[in-house]
């Protein structure tokens, strides 16, 4: 099959829509919701209205069945407007993916209906206060009692956790079994024994809601179990292998914004009698940014293409996520440098880019975990 880098007319149209949406609906309110540390629910409603929310749900379950390539095209655009706001729909896709991968027809019908008929979010609850990267060490207990699993434990750093209609919770039926004892089960909002507490004081991505979830004798119907007992760990890993590609796309969006802001400023700001864009020291920074953006985008598209083709892609997703998030952090850093003192102030949008994109190096698997995945891929050959 020949290599073809062109987007279809449809993909160009949805890129245009997402770009316009980010420019008109996200960028103008990003600083405000960052300051308020509040979820802009109006944006979530509008995303639903135009079809950009939960669009990976297949058409037969009321969604649009978007592929990974479409997802990353949209992701770059929305994150250009605000990475924190993009995390809301992105984390919802993260909560949808385990159901997509491991849910049966009845579960998909039931849960996806809740996520398509109105503006609604999904969430994914893996991390705990005592373990993050070491997912097999999770301590949230699940005990089977008749037709129910009884959950006890605490999850933390859960995006959308308090707003979500459905939360996929990973728990263990026997901690001694490590990853072989993990289950994935869908907990609906409002289930007795399940409470969500919003975490405050985040460095960035403050427009997305991050929660601690507490389960106290929370009885969840056994029919909400995804796959079999013991499948949970695999479901979590297979999910993250896919969903870290949109994290890479979001990083590219942040970096592109950094370059645009820095370029505009460099052309306007004068020093020593000429625009600072005339100085090579500044030009080289801009050139480095574009080198990073272009390579990260091309590689992110490649990882998305592998996913859509059904080819092995775990290593590619890891490379895209780690590379793009580090590139974007550096782009944001240099954008601040180009802005000088102004870049350090809230008044200009570039310091927020850095605060926001720091999280891209941490969530959905730290970049150290990504390197582990990449190294295992090398050594297994």
């Amino acid at each position: 099959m020949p290599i073809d880098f062109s987007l279809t007319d449809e993909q160009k149209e949805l890129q245009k829509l997402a770009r316009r949406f980010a420019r008109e609906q996200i960028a103008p309110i990003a600083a405000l919701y960052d300051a308020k540390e509040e979820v802009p629910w109006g944006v979530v409603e509008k995303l639903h209205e135009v079809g950009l929310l939960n669009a990976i749900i297949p058409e037969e379950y009321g969604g649009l069945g978007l592929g990974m390539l479409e997802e990353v095209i949209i992701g770059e655009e929305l994150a250009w407007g605000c990475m924190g706001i993009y995390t809301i729909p992105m984390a919802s896709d993260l909560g949808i993916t385990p159901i997509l991968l491991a849910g049966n027809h009845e579960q998909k019908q039931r849960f996806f209906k809740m996520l398509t008929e109105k503006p609604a979010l999904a969430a994914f609850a893996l991390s705990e206060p005592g373990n993050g990267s070491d997912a097999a060490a999770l301590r949230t207990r699940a005990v089977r009692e008749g037709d129910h699993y009884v959950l006890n434990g605490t999850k933390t750093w859960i995006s959308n956790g308090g707003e979500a209609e459905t939360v996929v919770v990973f728990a263990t039926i026997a901690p001694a079994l490590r990853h072989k004892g993990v289950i994935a089960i869908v907990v609906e909002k409002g289930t007795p024994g399940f409470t969500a507490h919003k975490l405050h004081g985040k460095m960035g991505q403050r427009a997305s809601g991050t929660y601690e979830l507490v389960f106290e004798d929370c009885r969840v119907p056994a029919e909400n179990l995804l796959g079999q007992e013991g499948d949970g760990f695999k479901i979590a890993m297979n999910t993250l292998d896919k969903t870290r590609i949109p994290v890479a796309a979001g990083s590219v969006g942040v970096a592109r914004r950094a370059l645009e802001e820095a370029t505009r400023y460099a052309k306007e700001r004068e020093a020593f009698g000429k625009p600072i864009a005339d100085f090579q020291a500044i030009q080289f920074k801009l050139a480095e940014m574009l080198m990073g953006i272009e390579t990260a985008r091309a590689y992110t598209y490649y990882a998305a293409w592998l996913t859509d083709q059904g080819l092995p892609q775990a290593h590619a997703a890891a490379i895209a996520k780690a590379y793009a998030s580090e590139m974007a952090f550096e782009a944001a850093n240099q954008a601040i440098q180009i802005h000088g003192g102004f870049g350090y102030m809230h008044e200009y949008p570039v310091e927020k880019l850095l605060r926001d994109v720091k999280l891209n190096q941490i969530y959905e698997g730290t970049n150290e975990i990504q390197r582990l995945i990449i190294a295992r891929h090398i050594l297994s050959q």
Partner: protein
Amino acid sequence: MKFIAVIRQVPDGESRLKIEGGKVDLSGVTMILDQMDEWAVEEVIRLQEKHGGESVVVALGPERFEEAIRTALAMGIDRAVHLVAEGYLDPITQAEALAETLRAEAPTLVFTGGQQADWDSQALGAAIAEALSWPVVSWTTQIELEGESHAKVKHDLDEGAEVVRVALPAVFTSQQGLNEPRYPTLPGIMKAKRKELKKVPISASSKVAIVEQTIQERTRLNKVLDGKDPVAAAHELVRLLHEEAKVI
């Protein structure tokens, strides 16, 4: 009932235009559905939602117009007719070509942008009405149908507005305040691909040829008042603002 919007594709207002060899160079410029035409498209969709029937867009222009047509279809228009002509055509020639299609479509009304954001004069709407011998209402801010025979329309005048009753079919041109256009939705984008887009090649010769184009350049006058005598400087500033800048 059938409602038609006549649309054009124009450079995005945020694009920076360049002149190459006495002509505007559109390469690398983002082209979009004209904003005032977008109001026309939105109004046509709203009329259809309220009164039923069919919504259609008609466009006259080069192949690249298809992108703007797809945007209108993604917003919810039922089908499209694209009169394909490369190169510049003056508004009167355009109107004559469009009139033929519009007459055959026999719509209840035709809506188009009050002014197109390229190098159009504000003539297209009026010229279409003239070519069809239909009435025209320009700068429309509100429209209400009275059955199939008349419409009650509010439109802007230079220093105010008036409400008129007009016999249908008629041509209307849009004005700011008419509506807030919807976004094309993702399902709309996917459906748009399957909607009918009829291409009709036309050959018309323009009555006007563009010889050379320039872009208005804004430069600072670099007038600095030294302010050694503050009273005189204030008087001079007021005089400049009044007589030269004409802002007070």
